[in-house]
């Protein structure tokens, strides 16, 4: 486990879950298992948590992976379903070119090796939202393998020190999404909507290189930003475009990996961190108390903040993978292997896609630091909020204030206002133009910093007044006249003398 995280778990374990526990209490718990631990000593070696992730990202495309029905979030039930999606006999899959390109883009952005020949397989299991009884996926040879993703973490809570970590990407594969089931427990039935059935997914499998909820959350956040920058997926977790399953286990240093559990039903990045941390804690406590960890699937209950075993578990699933007989291998080309006389539309050229990749978040951050002289932590915060970088650059263009100071105003004041009122940058009542105006007044020393904050609070009300109007109204101008200042100071001194 990385330096920052391993230490955290050692300390947390010694303290016990939820807060400091008296040393004596800890010693009793250890003694109960037979290990002689003199009171006052912390005793045993720390646990090493291991976290791997399986992320499903819905591909941003007009139509589905193997059929021509539309991809859209909210639509009348079963209105975006073709005969193939409903698994009616006699229908065949036809691969969508855009989905292939999205997967290749993502693979290249994550430093993967793109397999020029990849294969499709069937994964069989029964469920009401999987009408065919199998899902077409890429189990044997996926489209991309062996990549990596770098992400940043704050070591402390103050965002003043950032550390960069890397997680290995095992593979990226193309697969079909299933439909949606709505469980009606009162009438003991399930309602099935196949609008989502057949939508293209990219499954990104991350190796178990992470060791806590915070790392997992940071890695997923970075992946989300990458996908959104590429446009291969909109990756909005709330709309189910990004789904994360976590594989968690713990072991003692030097020993082999422990039994892992799979945690599902995680609906946001915050919950991901909570779920992973809870599961690590649960496993540690279970093992400390002499129990064992079952290789099971657990669901995260966001209300209770804990993981519970999932029902519907029929022991280890046997998916009976078999090659998809209706799809020949997917062949991709590069500049060297480009066939001379093939229809342009039938060719996916990896090099062509590589040349057109946009700047990834990490590159954008470095450029901001270089161009504006801001700190890496600041550029991280700017890119973390949708539209904030653009806002910042617009303000910088319209003001004489140094970017370093501008960024402080944006991150410390504007952003906190937005967060307090749950608004996005686009919805901000204070436009970049207004903020630039205000900062110019401050820069020209026409108002003080305190006054500027007051003006910002007024601007926030969105009443359409300009900063200058508010300053005049509230008489916040700094007195520039030296003589007047002298008179005031003299009056104060005289007042003191009189007492």
């Amino acid at each position, binding site marked *: 486990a990385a330096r920052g995280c391993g230490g955290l778990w050692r300390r947390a374990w010694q303290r016990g879950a939820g807060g400091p526990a008296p040393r004596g209490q800890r010693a009793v718990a250890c003694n109960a298992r037979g290990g002689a631990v003199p009171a006052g000593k912390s005793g045993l070696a720390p646990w090493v948590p291991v976290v791997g992730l399986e992320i499903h990202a819905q591909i941003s495309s007009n139509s589905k992976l193997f059929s021509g029905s539309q991809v859209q979030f909210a639509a*009348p039930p079963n209105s975006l379903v073709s005969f193939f999606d409903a698994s009616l006999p006699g229908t065949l899959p036809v691969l969508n070119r855009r989905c292939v390109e999205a997967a290749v883009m993502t693979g290249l952005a994550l430093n993967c090796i793109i397999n020029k020949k990849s294969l499709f397989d069937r994964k069989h299991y029964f469920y009401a939202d999987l009408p065919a009884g199998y899902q077409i996926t890429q189990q044997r040879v996926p489209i991309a393998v062996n990549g990596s993703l770098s992400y940043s973490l704050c070591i402390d809570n103050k965002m003043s020190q950032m550390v960069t970590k890397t997680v290995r990407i095992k593979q990226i594969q193309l697969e079909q999404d299933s439909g949606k089931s709505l469980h009606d427990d009162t009438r003991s*039935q399930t309602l099935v*909507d196949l609008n989502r059935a057949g939508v293209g997914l990219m499954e990104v499998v991350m190796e178990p290189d992470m060791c806590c909820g915070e790392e997992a959350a940071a890695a997923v956040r970075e992946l989300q930003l990458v996908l959104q920058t590429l446009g291969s997926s909109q990756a909005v977790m709330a709309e189910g475009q990004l789904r994360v399953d976590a594989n968690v286990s713990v072991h003692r240093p030097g020993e082999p990996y422990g039994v892992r559990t799979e945690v599902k039903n995680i609906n946001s990045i915050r919950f991901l961190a909570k779920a992973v941390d809870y599961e690590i804690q649960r496993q540690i406590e279970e093992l400390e108390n002499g129990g064992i960890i079952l290789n099971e699937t657990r669901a995260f209950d966001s209300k209770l903040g804990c993981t519970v075993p999932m029902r519907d578990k029929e022991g280890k699933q*046997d998916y009976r993978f078999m090659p998809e007989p209706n799809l*020949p291998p997917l062949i991709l080309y590069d500049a060297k292997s480009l066939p001379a006389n093939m229809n342009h539309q039938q060719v996916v050229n990896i090099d062509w896609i590589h040349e057109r990749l946009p700047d990834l978040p990490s590159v954008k951050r470095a450029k901001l630091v270089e161009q504006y002289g801001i700190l890496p932590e600041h550029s991280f915060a700017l890119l973390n909020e949708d539209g904030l970088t653009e806002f910042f650059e617009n303000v910088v263009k319209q003001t004489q204030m140094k970017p370093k100071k501008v960024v402080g105003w944006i991150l410390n004041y504007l952003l906190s206002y937005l967060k307090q009122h749950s608004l996005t940058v686009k919805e901000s009542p204070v436009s970049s133009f207004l903020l630039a105006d205000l900062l110019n007044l401050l820069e020209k020393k026409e108002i003080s910093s305190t006054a500027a904050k007051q003006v910002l609070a007024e601007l926030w009300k969105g009443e359409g007044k300009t900063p200058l109007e508010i300053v005049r109204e509230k008489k916040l101008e700094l007195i520039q006249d030296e003589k007047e200042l002298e008179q005031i100071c003299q009056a104060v001194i005289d007042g003191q003398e009189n007492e």
Partner: protein
Amino acid sequence: MRALRAGWWLRAGRPPLPVSPARVLLTAPVASYAQVPPRPAWQHGERRPPPQQKVTVEVLDHLERLALVDFRDAEGVERLQKAIQFADQLHEVNTDGVEPMDSVLEDRCLYLREDDVTEGNCTKELLKNAREKVEEYFVAPPGNIPLPKLEERETFLQGS
């Protein structure tokens, strides 16, 4: 179960490799078959496939659970047994150094479709297939109802 490993039915390599020519005729020779004969007309005489282990009850139960088939009676199990034996003949072909073939289409070009919306909007037609529907949703039983354990369900396998 050796025969049930994934890919057992695709072990034949290309080009076709020589197989023992020794055929044992099982029925009276007929000049030409107008249709598929009701019983195998010949089989390997010399090298019989080694006697098969019986398919165990655990495997049969596993299959019933996985594929939701019902072997129903001893004849059904026997048919399965014979099918495995029949397919095992493939093992006699020497496939050393030959890449398994997935399908006869593997040299074909995988057609790539343009990302246009061309289908959908046929809710009414699709729902005609549904036995039960609620407001344009298909209705299904609540979640997967797992097959009861072998001891608890009525199946011919219990007796074996």
